[in-house]
């Protein structure tokens, strides 16, 4: 246990190692080269790694999976996301970033739970006919998950940007909002709470006109029947909408309208949404 603790801390506060000197020095072995990796990272990772290395001494990035055609897509706080070929198919690999500031036992448990929740929610979505990526492989050792890559897809976020930039097709956005409302209603009717609804977590499969939506990133999802949780889910999306896409109030209204029309349990949910709106930050406490 002492050794394990020393190893866990080795990536983080160097000062701790001094106390456990004799033991720790021997254990630095495996951790040492890994830290070295931060400097000699591969091109794709280099830019952000440099900054990351400087800012977070404690963070040790997980080793990229040896998939052919590997590209680092995103370095989130929770996980590093890669794209590559897995068993001959285009796949997305999400490798969780271990948080060294957490107690190792907690970290392990939390990491495992998040991954399990993601896998569970994805399966639940698919069984209900809600479009979400297929799970190819779950690695409980490194807490990584390998999923279907929706090739040539565009995030709804990027789609809205490009439509607004080009100036035409506002009716298309209205239809898109309706589709989103319908999809979310079906998801909530299955008691699946996404937990991180943003326009970047909704993909559009080509061709864009078909409005074929796919939900992704269920890392913060959970199962709940409570209108409160569903209301908060929608609130998160509303805030994301307003902050990322100006002049989209009409869109979100259309989304809610279709949501209310599609979901059988929408009444209490919309009510809760109104309540949640009244809470939140920067609310004037008048009346």
């Amino acid at each position: 246990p002492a050794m394990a603790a020393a190893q866990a801390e080795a990536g983080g506060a160097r000062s701790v190692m001094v106390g456990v000197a004799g033991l720790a020095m021997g254990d630095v072995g495996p951790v040492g080269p890994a830290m070295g990796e931060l400097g000699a990272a591969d091109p794709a990772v280099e830019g952000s790694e440099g900054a990351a290395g400087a800012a977070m001494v404690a963070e040790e990035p997980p080793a990229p999976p040896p998939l052919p055609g590997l590209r680092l897509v995103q370095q989130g706080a929770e996980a590093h996301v890669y794209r590559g070929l897995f068993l001959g198919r285009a796949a997305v690999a999400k490798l969780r970033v271990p948080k060294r500031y957490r107690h190792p036992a907690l970290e392990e448990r939390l990491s495992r739970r998040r991954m399990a929740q993601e896998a569970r929610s994805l399966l639940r979505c698919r069984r209900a006919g809600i479009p979400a990526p297929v799970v190819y492989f779950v690695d409980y050792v490194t807490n990584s998950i390998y999923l279907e890559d929706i090739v040539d897809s565009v995030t709804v976020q990027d789609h809205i940007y490009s439509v607004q930039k080009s100036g035409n097709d506002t009716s298309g956005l209205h239809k898109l909002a309706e589709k989103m409302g319908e999809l979310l209603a079906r998801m909530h009717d299955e008691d699946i709470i996404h937990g991180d609804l943003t326009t970047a977590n909704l993909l559009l499969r080509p061709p864009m006109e078909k409005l074929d939506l796919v939900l992704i990133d269920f890392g913060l999802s959970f199962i709940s029947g409570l209108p409160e949780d569903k209301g908060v889910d929608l609130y998160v999306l509303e805030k994301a909408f307003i902050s990322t896409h100006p002049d989209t109030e009409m869109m979100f209204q259309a989304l809610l309208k279709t949501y209310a029309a599609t979901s059988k349990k929408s009444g209490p949910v919309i009510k809760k949404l109104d309540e949640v709106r009244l809470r939140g930050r920067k609310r004037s406490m008048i009346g």
Partner: protein
Amino acid sequence: MEQTHRLELFPDRSVTLLLFQHVKNAAALRKKAMEGSIDGALINPAMIVDPFQILVAANKAVHLQKIGKMKTRTLYAEIIFSLSPSNNISDAFKKFGISDSDTAVLIVLVVDGDKTVNLADIASQVEGQQVSLDELPQLTDTAKVKKIYKVTPQEEKIGSLLDSVVCRMSTKDVL
């Protein structure tokens, strides 16, 4: 004819698939497999939708073997178990392994590194005709697959049968 694929996450292993039709000695083969004298997994092709399904099972089996967490006793048994949506090992063998009356057999081999696969050795034990993996779709019993994996009608609208099958295989032990 046969197909070989390297497991990306386990670069020292590759998976080879061989398909045989008009097999006459399924009973003898099954016995040999149970005794462990055949170095491969003997699978009922009717339950297989696509070679990818086998690869996913093999990948999981090799992973579990490496961390010492297999649920069965051998790698080949684990591959068959990984294919099954159920956690009952004997059920997995019944549904996905071969039975005495089968006339088609899919054999899966997992080899270390660049060790050349002795295909002739395996093939000689089968009293049947080796065919290309392209023939697999014709041997698939789609209705049975849907039933065993409990694929829902809504699910069929958002993806292929293979998608449904693979998703269940990979998330089987998450709950």
